[in-house]
């Protein structure tokens, strides 16, 4: 839980992968509706950068994704979570975990509360 997705940076997102996450979802306010004006737009840019890094170091693709939700959309959150978990299942375990012999298939979820 973070005050704003704008708080999360690339090193923390990569840290999650380093610690064995197969995928990372970042969930922020709807675009244009950020509680802190522009935090979610910055977060999206950082997520895109991490996406590129993951591809370059052959961990990606499709292991990180930014979603936008309003606080009242519980069922949409569940749909997003299921969608993302299925996506990660398809991609399979992260090479980091394969190397370490682990096969966890869960995703670290960074959920913003506003």
């Amino acid at each position: 839980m973070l005050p704003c997705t704008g708080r999360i940076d690339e090193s923390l997102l990569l840290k999650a992968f380093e610690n064995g996450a197969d995928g990372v979802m970042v969930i922020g306010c709807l675009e244009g509706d950020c509680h802190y004006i522009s935090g979610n737009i910055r977060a999206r840019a950082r997520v895109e950068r991490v996406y590129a890094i993951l591809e370059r170091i052959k961990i990606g693709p499709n292991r990180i994704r930014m979603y936008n939700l309003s606080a009242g959309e519980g069922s949409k959150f569940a749909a997003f979570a299921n969608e993302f978990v299925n996506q990660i299942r398809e991609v399979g375990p992260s090479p980091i975990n394969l190397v370490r012999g682990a096969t966890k298939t869960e995703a670290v979820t960074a959920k913003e509360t506003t």
Partner: protein
Amino acid sequence: MTGNLSTFSGSMQSPTGAVMVIGGGISGMQSALDLANAGIKVYLVESSPAIGGKMAQLDKTFPTNDCSMCIVSPKLVEVGRHKNIELFTHSEVKELTGNAGSFTATIVRHARYVDVGACTGCGLCEFVCPVTQLSYFPEVPAEGEKKSRAKAKVKRVIKGPGLPQPTSAHKWTFTVDDEACAMCGMCHRACLHGAISWEKKQKAVIDQAKCTGCGACLVACPEKFLAIKVADAPDLEKSIGAAVYARSVSLKKEFAGPEAQDCIRCGLCAIACEKVMNIGALKMVEEGIEAGVDICQVCGACVSLCPVNYLSIDQVTSRTPRPLLNRFNEGLNGRKPVNIHYPQAVPRVPVIDEKSCVQLNSGACGTCATICGVGAIHYDHREVETTVDIGSVIFSPGIEVFDARVRGEFGYGLYKNVLTSIEFERLLSASGPTSGTVARPGDGKHPQKIAWIQCVGSRDHSCDRDYCSSVCCMYATKEAFIAREHDSAIEPTIFYIDMRSFGKNFDQYVNRAKEHKVRYVRAMVSRVFEDPLTGDLELRYVDESGKRQREVFDMVVLSVGIQVSQSTKKLARKLDIALDRYGFAVTDCYQPLATSRPGIFVSGAAGGPKDIPETVCEASAAAEAASASLAEARGSLITIDALPPERTPGPDDELRIGVFICHCGTNIASVVDVDAVTAYARTLPGVVYAEHPLYTCSQDSQERMREIIGEHRLNRVVTSACSPTTHEPLFQSTLQQAGLNKYFFDMANIRDQCSWVHPNDPDLATEKAKRLTRMAVANATAGVPLDELEFAVDARLLIVGGGVAGMTAAVEAARQGFGVYLVEREAQLGGQLLNLQRSVDGRKFSDFLQTLTEKIAADERIRVFTSSEVVEQSGFVGSFQTDIVMPSGATRTLKHGAILVATGAEEYRPEIHGLGTLGHVMTQTDFGAVLENGSLDTRHHPSVVMLQCAGSRDEEHLAYCSRVCCNHAVKNGLRFKEMFPKARVDVLYRDMRCYGLGELDYRAARQAGINFIRFDPETNPVTINAGEAGIDITVTDPSIRLPVRLQPDLLVLSTGMKSRDTEELASMLRVPRNKAGFFIEAHAKLRPVDLPSEGLFMAGTAHGPKSSTETIAQAQAAVARVATLLSKKSLKMSGIVSRVDPTNCAVCLTCVRACPYGVPFINDQHSAEINPALCQGCGICVAECPAKTITMGRYDDRNIRAKIESYSAS
């Protein structure tokens, strides 16, 4: 503005520093919060079981499509937790005596039968209660009389398609108690499986091998013997009702399907009827269930407990079932007699309905009391009277919707697929009866074509609702919009008279709806016919070309107006305040909140129809008006928590973490193995204590937590419970009371994010709860104590702009006891009002301005700077500095704690139709002046044409609606007609937006003979030729469908309002303006007078076009908001703020550029610096800083890394 209170100010008696607020809707809540935060004690009285009002029922809000519940629930929580707001829910005001300044009110708390203090809101009672109908209770025998049960005379056997198939799943064990058995043989005869052997004069014996556990023997054994004993029944130690419920739940898990199934002979219906309800109407027979239809009390228990939906209510009785309907969901679904008003209710405590509860009426059942874990249910509650002493009263009881059955032609109440708008709102709501699915109540079909019919119970003389309800055009647009969002196959059509989207950003919203395929048809629907076979609805109307139309829709939504309820009218009589003929409280246009009785103020729709932001604004304004005369008693009746000094942890202190894993009744514990999680928590590094309270949040658990922190010398606390949004402040305050820094705390949400979402996977849920707890422990370990910066507040207010808003605010702020600097650019105070003549009720504005000016001059707390301008501004909330340049050219620095922007607006004067060059073409303001100074030629009756939207709602001029012009035209038209009754007046308009009670004047204008001709810039434009020689106008009048030619003596243009040039001021204050140049409020709905930066507020037309009355209310509202800051000696800021470590700062300016609030700056030490008082705590700079030299409270890298590492550790 002080007239209302003059009776009081002369007396010597000191006023009571408390206010009673009647009505707990958004209005009452806002008033209560503003008062309580400004040091006034509040008694908030709400008649329903929970606060929230109409806003809590709405799905989304216009024009931002914000989720209504999401934005209102923080307010609910804040009101519920506020120490200085005493809540009286399910209560009524009985009596009010005394005078302004010192009233005494008697408040009656109706019996709730549930102890608000003890109840934890788990909702178990509601689950367990088997009753779904309003019963026909058997007569209670008189005292001393022998209780005898009615015997069934009319019996009906309920048969399924097949024979009942007995199940032995989850069966109970029945045995015969030899001591009690009277050898009557009833059980032997009742048993359908031959499991009971009995001979005359012999005791019965049950053969366990043959017994299926149906309980027929239990039901049959006469009450005087009670010889059948039950064993192996979970929850039986609580009550038979609890045991029946438990078995029903486990059988439902196994057997229930979507379709009704054959009887499984579980016997629960008969056991419940006999042993729980004490009726005995049901009996198991060979072919099925035999119902004594004449003695059935129709409580519905048998049906709700039946695990396979074998029984239906119509079968078991010959009486008419009366289902209990959920009032919050507008009767669209059922409820139990014990019912929590709505899921997010505050207080989240059920009420037991006296009319339908079986225990309260017949003395039977009582299951809920036996199952309540905290003993909160008391059937012996009686209503309680309390008297409170108060200084003022705020009357904000809100409104109800029009009863659509009065307009019989639309078939509401007869046709199932005709709904009211508020019902549709519940259909859209995710927490509503259909979980947000738009389905027809008649057949559950997804409707495709939906029609909205506007003005049902508004603008309608025939049913005495002449006024406009103000909100329906917008909410219909919103509902149509959102319906399409839910299901893109929906084709919405809105049938309307005038599209009254007069508020800020409303027109854009309607345009967006049009882009999203919402169809608007300008027509009055005459009738709705239902096709009885399909349930479809045929609408008949006359279209704009005059053709009769028939169109078929799947669903019809009636946009019902709002009205004052009978109970509100009764209450108003009790309070002795005057109401108009519609029941709205009578007010004065210069004192929009004051009712006819001094000391009582009205707010919200009780004073006339209005939307949420206007209501919130009025609520703050009423709080201001109610407290201004109580200013000297501020702080006299409130309680302030005294906290023990904080323990300072030493650097070498060992880690001592305490973990509390909450059961939340059964909410968490029924899914998550809390024992296992607690045991696991004990193994985590640093944890020295762990336990699992039933309800961690309950009063006694919190007391215990405080003791444990001391006893075990804990220096970190973690709770794994519910949502931090609602409960973190409670736990943190317990930490503070135990002398621990409140940031040595973390919370895992193992309810909303674990047990509630994984009810079918207890093992994995338990693992997840362990992991979440582990991460919270890791975060708490990484926690550091944070200081909450405290600084003194300068109790002076700077007001920029000396128009009616600024002047009103100055007078009111001074009455509140604050110093005021009033800075005006012009040489004279008065602003736009100097150009206007008369108020809606015909009084001269000049007299009003005169009074205001005198008050300002007489008050030594107000310093006026005319011909002065703000040139520089710095500081932060509570301590601002502003430089102004005075007429002498000298600069003066003013110090103050808050800023009010009241820079106003001005009349738009476009060069169209000869305005500015021709003498007989003028604006409405000019026309008002002409009417006033008598310069019109009185010898003949001059003819006038008024052109509305002359420069408004026009992309080339002002893109927005200026809100006031329609009313202004009507006002001037009526006055002109009064002076020249024979003169002709034609008003050319697009939509007459005479919202609220302004509709009455519009009606009067039509009656006075003013002719209104509708035009449309695209389909029916107006051609105007204005020259020295005269004016020639042609337009097609749609009502006669013929072109008309007008050659008036005068052309009056309703040009609208444009913002003043405030660009420089806005950038100086770092506050945003919209495209049109009006300031943007912090939140369009709930913070209408706050600017986004702390300590800055706005009022009047600087916010957007509005009337003088609305401006006065807004100015008072802004002062109420200011008072919540300036009444405090000091302010405390959150400890979660960004801090720069200067040692690593490279002065790269990244943070300066990244901060959305422009807070970081480069100090004279050549390092970035962040003022903690200005920091909003988003953490964007922390993430952006390339040198990683910015840290932030508990959301620091250290904390997040600790959580990520502990996520994957095991």
